[in-house]
């Protein structure tokens, strides 16, 4: 397995009186796409938000690129190359598509070549360039959220449920886009409920249950083992073909 770009060791997160993450340990290998799976309420979103510094880890350590990032403020993590696409996409509805991307370009201007590449992944972005983001469809908003995350080269991309609520045709577009992203040297961690999407794209997988990691390994191994899928996720991948 490649060297880890991100590693979590014994991470606990409390939100108010709730103890959500209860000692999370796993690593995200550099350059690959890791799927974080688990039932609803397992703590996947909390895990991403804790890595991004949006919720503070109450114990344990998070290391990013060999350095302790447990209590690094969110803006500093972003400046160190982590991009985050939240579950609700977090687009700025009152800004245009262009302005949404411009905000994410910390070099102050958009790189035309990079933009052409993004338009190749998501042609709808070019068509809606001067339109308000709030007027986009759900699928287009997800495309915008991902476009914004990759408008400049990032080292680590955290994506929370990119296929949630999307039509099959849009999911197919997403799969193609992520395949293209995998060709870059960006490391990707995706929280996902769509097992077809996960199996198609994942190199490695971590499965969460009740705030802990209960399985890590190669995605292909999990995809091939129906008994393990049923034990970890409550159903088999075959049910989602």
């Amino acid at each position: 397995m490649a060297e880890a770009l991100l590693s979590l060791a014994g991470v606990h997160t409390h939100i108010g009186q709730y103890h959500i993450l209860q000692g999370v340990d796993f690593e995200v290998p550099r350059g690959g796409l890791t799927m974080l799976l688990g039932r609803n309420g397992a703590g996947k979103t909390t895990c991403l938000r804790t890595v991004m510094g949006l919720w503070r880890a109450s114990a344990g350590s998070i290391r990013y690129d060999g350095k302790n990032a447990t209590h690094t403020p969110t803006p500093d993590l972003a400046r160190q190359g982590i991009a985050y696409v939240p579950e609700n996409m977090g687009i700025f509805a009152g800004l245009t598509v262009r302005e949404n991307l411009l905000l994410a370009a910390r070099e102050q201007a958009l790189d035309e070549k990079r933009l052409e590449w993004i338009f190749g992944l998501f042609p709808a972005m070019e068509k809606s360039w001067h339109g308000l983001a709030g007027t986009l469809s759900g699928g287009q908003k997800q495309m915008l959220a991902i476009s914004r995350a990759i408008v400049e080269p990032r080292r680590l991309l955290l994506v929370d449920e990119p296929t949630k609520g999307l039509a099959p045709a849009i999911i197919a577009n997403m799969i193609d886009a992520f395949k293209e992203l995998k060709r870059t040297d960006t490391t990707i961690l995706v929280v996902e409920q769509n097992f077809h999407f996960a199996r198609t794209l994942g190199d490695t997988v971590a499965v969460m249950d009740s705030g802990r990691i209960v399985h890590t390994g190669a995605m292909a191994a999990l995809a091939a083992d129906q008994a393990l899928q049923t034990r970890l996720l409550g159903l088999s991948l075959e049910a989602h073909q």
Partner: protein
Amino acid sequence: MNAARRFDWMPLALVGAVLLAALPLVGSASTWVTLTVAGLAMGMMVYMMASGLTLVFGLMDVMNFAHGAFISVGAYAAASVLLALHGRMEQPSLAANLSAMLPAALAAIVLAGALGLFFERVVIRPVYGDHLKQILVTMGGLIVCEQLIHVVWGPDQIPLPRAASLAGSITFGDVAIERYRLLAVLVGLAVFAAMWLLLARTRIGLLIRAGVENAEMVESLGYRIRRLFVGVFVAGSGLAGLGGVMWAMYQESVNAQMGMQMMVVIFIVIIIGGLGSVGGCFVGALLVGLLANYIGYVAPKLALGSNILLMVLVLLWRPNGLYPVGKS
């Protein structure tokens, strides 16, 4: 790239409808023009006082009742300068008057801005995310500031004579327009234009507009929203100070309660406009100013409730205000 951004003209059409509807009710065209200019002037002054507060609420979800203190302190700071330079105010030359009014406005902006910085650091920062505590501590802060004004400037109202060149009216036929009201309209338009340029044409403006919608996402993109917020808070406090001195010169006096008295109108304006919306605040302030003047003339007994009636009607039409800010 063919999907153009569409501007919502309906709230502006409402302003136009109010203007047109008032004409037959007022009866006389010359009176209507006088009332309209008076309403616009009042609206512009209220806008100056309210615009900072709406941005502060939109950016950090802070209910700052102490905003009224910035208005009063700004007015008193300016009054001190104007009284010290009263010789220049009495000269009939506009240049001489401005040489006193500009330093007074600057003093108001600086002192109100500094007070805003102090409030953000000491009073508001410990209560982020807790509306009830925000209301309590900022109301407390407003009362403390009022008492401090009494200590520094005394308990009595201070008369503030208008500049000689701005006294009286300009007449066009039957139409008489107070010179000072024209100045208020011009200053208000200049402030609105500057804010519009800042918000629409600069990167800081882009960040502010994004932060009003989703501060957490702005942080996730690598920006320190807290610094931005402090900047907006101080600028909003300074604008409140400027609005305070404009209002004080309009009323020709300053008193410690003027900020608190204006807060009711200011809250109505930012609620009508849509919390966090500068454009909505501008349109809301114009509506409040125009209606207050028209109704005060046509049906004086209804004048007291006209703002509340306006708010009710607007919220029945658009429950989130004229230009709602989509929080995500």
